[in-house]
């Protein structure tokens, strides 16, 4: 019994190709049933996310299984042109190694991300429910989930955030703990501020105030975020109630200074204030970071933390590869002892 994988991902194929070969969740069961008819294939699991479309399968002869899956991909999606360069076709041991790397986030666009593990788990469960898996793939996927867990706990590849938005969220959580009761104010209705505010909202933050020099734009963004627009000339009064300020406005001078914030902190009873300055030139005077309970980060600070976290993740790549290689070998030993299985179409 041999394990193979045929697929394409963010590195091998552009998005317009990936979307053509993607399997929508609504039609996945139908596709899994159709996969059963592929000649030479004993088992099959379809993994389809925004960054990858992959079909894992088993067969007596790897070439036949790969060819069957590839034909299925083309015929199912009605693609006439043969995607020679976009599609990768792996036999053992690379096929096993590839799955272990995918579930561990080593093959992801954002190195070390963990979302893919949940997506592969769901894909496997759907295949299991459709009776598309047998002993080999069941064992393979279970092993893959164990490897992902091991890599997560024994290395740094999932530690720390690697994007500006997620670094801001992580910092906010280390200042306030739960974000559910926190309030955020956006000064300047820019794109980066909106994205950062949305990242914070995804972690439970509810109340959003928007202040912009053009009040109509503030109202529009506030409506989108489910928040409230504040007039730019009075935004300062609202800072007493706010916990997080995201500022990205183009102004020649600082909109928040130490002199203005110092008395405000007393009025706030010294509750912590997290200031995220995404503006260039900077909107907030750097000296405010010297005030007690005020935490100021500008765009470079956030980017530097994201880069440092990414470097730490990549430094652990060798350790991850060792763990993957050791587990691939163990799994192959188990696979060699497995008796031959019938193909799905013969069942």
């Amino acid at each position, binding site marked *: 019994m041999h394990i193979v994988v045929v697929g394409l991902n963010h590195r091998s194929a552009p998005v317009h190709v990936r979307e053509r070969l993607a399997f929508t969740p609504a039609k996945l069961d139908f596709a899994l049933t159709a996969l059963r008819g592929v000649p030479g294939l004993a088992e099959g699991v379809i993994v389809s996310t925004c960054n990858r479309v992959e079909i894992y399968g088993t067969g007596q002869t790897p070439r036949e299984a790969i060819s069957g899956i590839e034909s299925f991909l083309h015929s199912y999606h009605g693609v006439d042109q043969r995607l020679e360069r976009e599609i990768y076709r792996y036999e053992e041991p690379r096929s096993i190694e590839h799955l272990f790397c995918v579930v561990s986030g080593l093959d992801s666009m954002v190195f070390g991300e963990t979302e893919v593990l949940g997506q592969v788990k769901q894909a496997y469960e759907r295949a299991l429910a459709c009776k598309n898996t047998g002993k080999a793939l069941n064992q393979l996927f279970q092993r893959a989930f164990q490897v992902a867990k091991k890599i997560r*706990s024994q290395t740094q590849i999932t530690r*720390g955030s690697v994007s500006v938005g997620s670094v801001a969220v992580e910092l906010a959580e*280390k*200042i306030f*703990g739960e974000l559910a009761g926190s309030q955020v104010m956006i000064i300047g209705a820019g794109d980066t501020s909106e994205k950062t505010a949305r990242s914070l909202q995804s972690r439970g933050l509810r109340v959003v105030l928007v202040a912009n020099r053009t009040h109509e734009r503030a109202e529009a963004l506030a409506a989108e975020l489910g928040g409230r627009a504040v007039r730019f000339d009075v935004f300062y009064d609202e800072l007493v109630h706010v916990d997080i300020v995201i500022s990205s406005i183009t102004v020649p001078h600082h909109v928040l200074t130490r002199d203005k914030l110092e008395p405000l902190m007393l009025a706030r009873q*010294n509750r912590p204030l997290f200031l995220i300055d995404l503006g260039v030139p900077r909107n907030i005077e750097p000296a405010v970071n010297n005030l*007690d309970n005020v*935490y100021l980060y500008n765009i470079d600070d956030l980017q530097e933390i994201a880069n*440092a976290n990414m470097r730490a993740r990549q430094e652990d790549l060798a350790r991850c590869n060792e763990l993957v290689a050791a587990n691939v070998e163990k799994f192959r030993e188990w696979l060699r002892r497995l008796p031959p299985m019938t193909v799905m179409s013969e069942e």
Partner: protein
Amino acid sequence: MNDRSFMLIGLVLYLGAFLQSLYLLRGCGQWESRAHGPLVLAGWLLHTYGLFLRGQRLGVCPITNLFETVMFTAWALVLIYMLVGLKWRVSLLGPFTLPLVIALCLFAMFPAVDQARDKFTRNVWLSLHATLSLLGYGMWALAGVTGVMYLVQERQLKSHHLRSLFLRLPPIAQLDVINLRLLIAGLVLLTVGIGLGFVVGVVLFLKDVPKTIWTFTIWAVYAGLVAVRLTGRMRGRKIALGSIVLLVILLATFWLVNLVSTAHRF
């Protein structure tokens, strides 16, 4: 095996749990193994049994000399740490608390510290007065520990240099709240303890001037710290720093005052 032996094995287990945490913290995986909690609990149970044996031998709560007083305070500190850790799931509280516990136990284990007293009170109310006061000090000791954790985390947030401890330490808001609760709990316990001591042993209380002045001064400074925190005039770093400075003063002066004390000489 005698009471000291059980307490010594308890100390070895605390040390083992601490060294294991240090070892795990050097790595990049989880800092806490499954063995950490059971190790501390086993150490505390042996510590408890040792104190129980000592109490049984004396016929009173085992706080009649400096050894017993310090061991009792360390015991209370571990108990409060376990309860706080259980209630609020405070990550890394163990590795920050255990050094203080170990230092207290090591100090107490010096043979010269464990001098048997010929005379000590068997009055239940006075025993309760001492017990509540020591539990209060235990609360303040843990407040000092959370203060250290706060300063470490706050330093990283202010400097923008986030080390591996950053992800493992709790949010500063949580540390600030726990610190305040411990300060208040310590204040309440000490207030009741002092109150009992005053009602039951008013004569001794008034005669023992150094201890009385020391106790009221410490109580008043802690009460002031709680007051400025509750009114919001100070919060975060200054309160954390206050908790640490007061704990150092408390530890440094407690035994000194006992040397010149009449009714509280351990």
